């Protein structure tokens, strides 16, 4: 259970600053990080994802997610980056987060945006996906992403210990909030997102973060993330079909792959010689996720993905002609 953020809360007047959060969320961690660095007292409220509070739902009706910062009678604030900037503007003299030069500031924002739109979704998906292939792809993506981050660190830090200087700032918080997850992946999946060979400066930065007086008490430990991960795995157990095929010995990771193999086998038994089959990543034919559905002897492609990438290699159209023309007629 999460302990109260401010030890003196019972002595002071009712807290003007309230934070709605979930233990283990890197976005919530970011806000707490800033509040602590700037010595802002606040009251923390732990939300239950499956049973969101009235306060959360009314404060953030658009997204219904944490973090939400409530400050006195001001409009509730949502989204970690705007909240961080708000706190920085509220108390600019105490531990300023962003550099003063507009050009440096803008590069911080660009990197934070890139990190949030690329690396963070990959980090999240890596935890949630059961598909072995996808996990491997995500590893590659994360490695590339963090190599890029290493380059950015070298450029921005100019030799200093943190992203923009001698002490923790905006980017250290944005990226650092994910360090618990990164540590977890190293322990549980034997996958090191940050590795000394590939990311020497980031590896050193990681150590500095974990030993920083404020950071080490704010960044959730990997044990907390492990609890969260176990909870998710309990909520969504793996499908019973992830077993080996009794005859071929092939291991299936999802029902879709089973279906595809059944279809292929049936067609080949029916006499179709050398069909050109290809499954892109974990989808049928195209960029998105799709299923094939046999419907009265015809094949239909459903869902997202229209075979664009396949069409570029002249495979998509061939497949469509072969298997859709019965319906077209």
């Amino acid at each position, binding site marked *: 259970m999460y302990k109260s953020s401010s030890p003196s809360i019972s002595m002071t007047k009712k807290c003007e600053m309230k934070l709605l959060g979930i233990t283990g969320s890197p976005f919530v961690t970011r806000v707490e990080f800033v509040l602590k660095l700037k010595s802002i007292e606040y009251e923390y409220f732990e939300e239950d994802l499956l049973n969101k509070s009235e306060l959360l739902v009314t404060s953030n009706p658009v997204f219904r997610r944490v973090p939400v910062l409530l400050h006195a009678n001001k*409009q509730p604030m949502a989204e970690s980056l*705007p909240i961080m900037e*708000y706190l920085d503007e509220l108390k600019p003299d105490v531990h300023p987060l962003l550099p003063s030069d507009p050009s440096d500031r803008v590069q911080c*924002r660009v990197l934070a945006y890139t990190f949030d739109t690329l690396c963070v979704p990959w980090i999240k998906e890596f935890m949630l996906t059961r598909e072995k292939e996808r996990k491997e792809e995500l590893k590659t993506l994360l490695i590339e992403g963090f190599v*890029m981050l290493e380059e950015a660190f070298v450029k921005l830090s100019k030799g200093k210990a943190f992203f923009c200087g001698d002490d923790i700032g905006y980017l250290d918080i944005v990226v650092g909030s994910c360090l618990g997850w990164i540590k977890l992946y190293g322990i549980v999946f034997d996958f090191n997102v940050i590795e000394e060979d590939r990311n020497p400066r980031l590896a050193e930065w990681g150590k500095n973060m974990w030993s920083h007086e404020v950071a080490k008490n704010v960044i959730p430990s990997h044990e907390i993330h492990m609890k969260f991960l176990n909870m998710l795995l309990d909520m969504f157990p793996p499908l019973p079909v992830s077993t080996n095929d009794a005859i071929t010995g092939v291991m299936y990771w999802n029902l879709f792959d089973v279906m595809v193999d059944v279809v292929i086998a049936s067609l080949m038994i029916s006499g179709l010689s050398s069909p050109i089959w290809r499954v892109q990543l974990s989808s049928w034919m195209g960029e998105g996720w799709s299923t094939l559905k046999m419907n009265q002897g015809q094949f*239909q492609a459903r869902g997202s993905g229209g075979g664009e990438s396949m069409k570029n290699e002249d495979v998509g159209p061939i497949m469509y002609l072969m298997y859709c023309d019965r319906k077209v007629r």
Partner: protein
Amino acid sequence: MAKNSEIKLIGTAASPFVNRVQFVLHLKSIEYEFIDENLASKSELLLKSNPVYKKVPVLIHANKPPIPESLIIIEYLDEIYPDIHPILPSDPSVRADNRFWANFIDTKFFPLFEELRRTPEKEGKEAIKKQLIEGSKLLEEAFVKFSNGKDYFGGDDVGYLDIVLGCFLGWTKFVEKHNEFKIIDEVRTPKLLEWTKRIWSHEALMDAIPRNETLMDFYMMLQINRPPRKATSS
């Protein structure tokens, strides 16, 4: 008059994100060079300036590192020219609220336009139209809150959200006409409708938003390069 021929903007006229930056440059009377980009065949300069996303707009200011992402560019311009037509409000909590709604518009509202174009079936399209209408109702509420009885999101004059949302109006009208429905109308979103008429005739916006033919050309380009998904049965 802020003269600065050191500012270059890589973009394409049909992109509302690029229009936003043009709007701000105009409001702040900043001179700049516009580098027209063909999105179907991206230039070396664009790929070098925005290697991660390869998208427009990208702002290049003198010999500083290039800046992508329209919202980030707007904040940068506001910081380097704070005295000429400030874009973001001064109150920190209102600024946070502005940034929140800009994020909503960019991540939840506008992507629906593209989703609508790419969805082939009528059912799917109807579902997205519904979402767009729901979104517009939220924006109506936001407008009432921010404008507080005045003409714009920014109050008496054009501000951040007027720019962020206003630049989508060309596409909004296009999509409404093309799909025969109204996203913004006098029954569900009366205040927003009044606002659209007001901002549509604002001098700086008229300068930034392209005419219908440009949008049509761009739309056709998208239809070819990123066609709608295949329909399911009948």
